[in-house]
């Protein structure tokens, strides 16, 4: 488009003027977090893709209601979350959270010893298993805040709740996560 990458606000303004190509830039910019958000809710690649794509289309037609100065990412994630929730199917088809088979390290990262790497991976596996045992409400607030690395304000916007609700829900969710880890350790 131009030499420097356009800011979200500029792309939104162009899209509000009907510039579909500018909107395509926004889609490209946020497709990964949108798809991952949808996948964390639906746990189905096909449903997540449909949800994210439909959300982007609906969001385009809703740009007239997008307030100037608002952040685009949480706004689109709110629409994605709603679309994803409406596509949830039976529990039997859900994919599970899993760690990547091999961690990709940057060139400057020191490789941990094999023993340390094994322990660290076991810790993460244990944390993941505890997370999977939590109720949906707890899992989703943790997923938005920590796995997707959204701020509390963004998490609130994406989930459609107040920032104070995110704070209290996170606090309870982390407490239950700790309990879930301890129960399994004791068992």
């Amino acid at each position, binding site marked *: 488009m131009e030499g420097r990458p356009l800011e979200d606000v500029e792309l939104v303004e162009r899209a509000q003027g009907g510039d579909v190509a500018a909107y395509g830039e926004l889609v490209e910019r946020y497709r990964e977090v949108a798809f991952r958000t949808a996948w964390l809710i639906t746990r189905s690649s096909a449903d997540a893709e449909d949800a994210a794509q439909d959300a982007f289309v609906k969001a385009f*037609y809703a740009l007239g209601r997008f307030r100037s100065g608002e952040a685009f990412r949480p706004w689109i994630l709110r629409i994605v979350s709603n679309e994803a929730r409406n596509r949830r199917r039976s529990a039997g088809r859900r994919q599970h959270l899993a760690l990547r088979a091999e961690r990709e390290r940057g060139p400057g990262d020191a490789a941990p010893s094999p023993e340390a790497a094994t322990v660290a991976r076991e810790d993460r596996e244990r944390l993941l298993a505890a997370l999977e045992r939590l109720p949906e409400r707890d899992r989703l607030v943790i997923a938005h805040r920590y796995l997707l690395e959204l701020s509390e304000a963004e998490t609130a916007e994406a989930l459609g709740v107040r920032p104070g609700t995110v704070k209290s829900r996170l606090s309870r969710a982390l407490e239950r996560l700790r309990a879930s880890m301890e129960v399994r350790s004791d068992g």
Partner: protein
Amino acid sequence: MDERMPMSDEDLGRALGTLGRELAYPGTPSMAPAVTARLTTDRSAGHRPPFPGAALWSRRRVVVLVAVGVFAALALAAAARLAIGSIQIRVQPGVTPSASLPPVVPEVLGDAVSPEAAVAQAGFAAALPAGPAPDEVYVVDSGFGDPGLLFAWRPSEVYPALPGTDHGMLLLALQGDEELVVKTVDRFDDVHRASVAGRRAFWIPVPHTLSVSTEAGTQTYSVAGNVLIWQAADGITYRLETTLGRAAALALAEGFA
């Protein structure tokens, strides 16, 4: 690891952040080409209103078609999705509650609890209408979003029985704006705009369906009663299902305390 001290919230947050970066997400599909193609096709086929693409049009055509465009945009946007707080209303032509769908009965939520226990479990107290107190209180916890409260009144002279149920009135109270409940109606005209305490409300006096997101999937019920939906100033969304007419239902809602 079992002998370690429990992690603080901060440590747990950091560990979860690391975990998030190491999750094996499915590959993100390319989306921009498909989305822009859909938008372009919609526009050329005239299936969608030109807004917000009006700037691409000539000024003359915009002037001529602005009224039509605005009306079309408003109608389509409204038809596609209406929402108040935690409740979304969808218009799906041809949809009518099938006889096989169960009615909304509070018993599917589990056992009734005491009002005090309900408030403690849900974490909030709902306003209630003046008049007879509810006969039963249930906590609605689908595992998705914050828990809600459902109040049920047995049939009486004040609240005649809702078709297909053992209740005369049902009041659902939900927290926040997370759209957890979807109501689907046949026609846009089935949803009437109203006002409760000066706040936007919807009145639905026709049979429709109600879907609730749960961890096991989406559960859908038939609704035969008249429904009033509004969001109070404190953010609580109310859904009142009753056999009362519009004026009586609105008066009841205005008297919530």
